[in-house]
């Protein structure tokens, strides 16, 4: 009997200590989370704003770009599973450009999220990779922080670049890539091409008079 009680005392003690540690450290975590979360959300928002500004320049529009968007339902051309935002840039209430958020599902490691800025005539104004997990030093040159590669899409459109040309030079396309990583640029190029097709077939919905 004594042995039995002794055993349960040890278990009880262990459970008690574990619970106490759990409570203490989760309160510490909760405290820090509450303190840092507003700052983190704010900087994430600012980062997004910066990217939107990089995709199309400030001179061509004068509306509140961050808050003027339409929800785009899941579409195979944009590869979005949930509805995504399409930002509409207007000058004097006339649509001058849109920013589409598209996803390349076939990156070397996971999905690549890309913002594509397109003017009302279907020319690309700018593109930025928002989120990716490509290999550091190999495929991550699609990120503007690592190289300017992503700017090669500026001024391209479905008109001045044929379907055949929308691929890397290795595949008889028009776009340069860096040695060592072709899967990454291939998927980025494909995603941007599909975003342009989406734009072409949804111009009315985006508020552009054809």
């Amino acid at each position, binding site marked *: 009997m004594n042995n039995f009680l002794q055993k349960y005392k040890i278990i009880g003690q262990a459970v008690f*200590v574990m619970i106490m540690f759990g409570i203490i450290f*989760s309160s*510490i*975590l909760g405290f820090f989370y509450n303190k*840092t979360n507003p700052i*983190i959300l704010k900087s994430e928002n600012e980062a997004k704003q910066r990217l939107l500004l990089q995709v199309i320049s400030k001179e061509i529009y004068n509306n509140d770009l961050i808050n003027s968007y339409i929800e785009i339902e899941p579409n195979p051309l944009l590869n979005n599973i949930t509805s995504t935002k399409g930002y509409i840039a207007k000058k004097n209430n006339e649509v001058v450009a849109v920013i589409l958020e598209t996803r390349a599902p076939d990156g070397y490691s996971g999905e690549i999220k890309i913002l594509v800025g397109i003017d009302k005539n279907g020319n690309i104004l700018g593109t930025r990779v928002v989120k990716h997990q490509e290999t550091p*030093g*190999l495929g991550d040159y699609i990120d503007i*922080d690592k190289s300017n590669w992503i700017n090669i899409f500026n001024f391209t459109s479905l008109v001045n670049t044929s379907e055949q040309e929308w691929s890397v030079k290795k595949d008889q396309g028009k776009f340069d890539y860096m040695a060592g990583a072709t899967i990454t640029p291939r998927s980025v190029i494909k995603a941007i091409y599909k975003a342009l097709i989406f734009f072409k077939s949804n111009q009315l919905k985006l508020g552009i008079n054809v």
Partner: protein
Amino acid sequence: MFKESVIDGLWKQNPGTIQLLGLCPTLAVTTTVVNGVSLGLATMIVMVIANSTISPIRKIVPDKIRVPIFILVIAALVTVIDLSIHAYAEPLYKALGIFIPLIVTNCIVLARVESFASKNPILPSFYDGFFMGLGLCLVLAILGGMREFLGRGTLFSDLDLIFGQAFSNVSLNFFDQYEGFLLAVLPPGAFLGLAFLIALMNWIDQKN
């Protein structure tokens, strides 16, 4: 005690090259000096705080459940550091990415807590965490330097990711047109670099 910690951490028991603990970040992050040093410093901070937190409570932690409690403490500390870096040093957070949360799984932190802090008073534990962390940080810096120099022909590039735009030109460029030695940047380069480093240390040890 202090001197012992210095010698053990930096040379005799160096976590990166002798204990070979914490290889995951050692190999994955050391593509440049800046990346290596940043992760090294983050790990060092975690080790110092973890050691100095565990040491004073070592007597109230029941022996049978000490490992889960150590992991709980380390995980909480790393999360706090992760949140703080994200909130107050966003560029650094972007550069280190997923590797900060991964410090939790870095064996070296748990190993030092288990084998040192849970048996020693607070001050020696503090020294141990600091110098073990410093030892790892130095290995990461040297490995990062080797790989960056061979792989990209530069040193100290991307310093602006941590200290802001003012430091964007500090980077040393050794060659005008360097194609880059890709192997050094890829994971095998990390294994080879570490192997050379260990060989070098063994050679020096043998000579003495």
